[in-house]
């Protein structure tokens, strides 16, 4: 029972295009690779995929940089405070995802204090004012903001289980604090980093709401493309083709990350 409940989405995802193509008798009688040819015929779709990939990579890296100090501080804190500190990470994450995006709409909006501040600094240096909202920058901020806890939590879970004796041993053997971090803590934390990266990278790749709300018209990502095919354009076969492309991309990434995260790859 547990098994089948898991199988539904994954298994069915694979069946989508065949199913739809055979159902949709008006446009495509039988099976066809027309939609796939269409996908590869126009460079713009490829470009959108590359762009989404870049946004996801950037978001993941920034999240690692932001999450690592906080996660290690929490893991090192006294047990009494750990719970509270992790709660403080989870709390904003518990508020609705749309609310968090909406908050950035207010902050980055043209009438906001931040916008006024940045633009007055820019005009001081003689640069034309910028709009923060509806830009790739706004999309990136939104992505980081929404996905940061996904990086902090696995990283903390991992760091919490490190044995402090190892660090003491390293210190006794004369390792500097940087060496202790690089040779003891960092290799041990890699599984946490990889699972955190998977939790950040993949949702970012398929996100449509953030580019939809915070981004401009040119900031669309794979997710927006798929959404439009299903809900606006109603070209379900092409939407499915895009979905399959995205699935393939994700599978490659997951395979890569789990290969990297497999235990015992690093000798300390």
């Amino acid at each position: 029972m547990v098994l089948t409940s898991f199988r539904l989405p994954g298994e069915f995802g694979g069946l989508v295009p065949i199913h739809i193509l055979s159902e949709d008798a008006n446009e495509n009688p039988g099976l066809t690779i027309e939609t796939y040819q269409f996908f590869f015929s126009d460079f713009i779709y490829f470009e959108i995929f590359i762009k989404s990939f870049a946004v996801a990579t950037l978001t993941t890296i920034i999240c690692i940089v932001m999450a690592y100090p906080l996660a290690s501080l929490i893991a090192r804190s006294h047990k009494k405070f750990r719970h509270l500190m992790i709660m403080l990470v989870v709390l904003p994450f518990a508020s609705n995802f749309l609310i968090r995006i909406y908050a950035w709409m207010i902050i980055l909006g043209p009438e906001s204090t931040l916008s006024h501040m940045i633009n007055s600094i820019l005009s001081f240096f003689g640069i034309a004012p910028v709009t923060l909202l509806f830009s790739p920058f706004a999309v990136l901020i939104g992505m980081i903001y929404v996905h940061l806890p996904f990086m902090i939590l696995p990283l903390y879970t991992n760091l919490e289980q490190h044995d402090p004796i190892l660090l003491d041993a390293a210190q006794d053997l004369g390792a500097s604090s940087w060496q202790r971090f690089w040779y003891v803590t960092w290799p041990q934390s890699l599984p946490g980093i990889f699972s955190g990266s998977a939790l950040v990278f993949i949702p970012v790749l398929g996100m449509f709401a953030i580019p939809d709300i915070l981004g401009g018209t040119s900031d669309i990502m794979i997710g927006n493309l798929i959404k439009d095919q299903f809900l606006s354009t109603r070209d379900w076969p092409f939407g499915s083709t895009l979905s399959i492309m995205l699935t393939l991309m994700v599978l490659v990434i997951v395979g890569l990350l789990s290969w990297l995260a497999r235990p015992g790859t690093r000798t300390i």
Partner: protein
Amino acid sequence: MPLRHFFLWIISLLVYAFLYIPLIIVVVFSFNDSKLNAEWAGFTFHWYKVLFNNHEMLLAARNSLIIAVSASILATILGTMAGLAIHRYQLKFLPFLAFTPVAMPEILLGVSLLLFFLQVLNLTLGMLSIIIAHTTFCIGFVTIIVRARLQGMDESIFEAARDLGATPWQTFRHITLPLIRSAIIAGALMSFTLSIDDFVITFFTKGVGEPILPIQIYTMIKVAVTPEVNAISTLLMLLTLTLIIIATRFDTSMLKGDSKQPR
């Protein structure tokens, strides 16, 4: 070392600020006596009054709660079972299947579920389809958390229990369960918040009839931004805050119990 620690604190505080300032702004502007979310114009409860006269919004809130509670209960039970099974039998294939919904971008799950409900199950989209959809994506998260906790544990504890003559059930009840309890609670909490939070999958699997909170909010943001959105946001945050405080109480009492049980 103290200097290093100091920097760590500074960075951490900045990260916390990054997490909280946007939300504080939303709350503050919900009391703002202006239609624009730009400048402070004076204190008012006006937007809350508007909100409480919005029946569709209230109905949407109720529906969302029902969905989140049902989905998180189902997902916690199934996810814990899966996590245990994967760890115990060292399954190679199940982890892959369990993590697929987590590993896939939500939009793919949304699209797949939409097609699955409509064309395979022939189900009318509505509350039921959303609950099933939410359970599906929450299971993976619970499984990951439970399994991660199990992986970090010393196997010899379980061997010791068995050597001392504990039955599999006793081992589970007195050793495994207390040890993974915090992971289970974390999983349940995560499921609830993910479910009430979820917009993408709800967006694809919702029917036409019942209003659902995230969809209502999305429409409001896209169409016309008024501080009414701030008001509903504030209330929603208050709700999750209360729930989490309750859960923490529950959890700490369990943590105290932890020290006694594995004798």
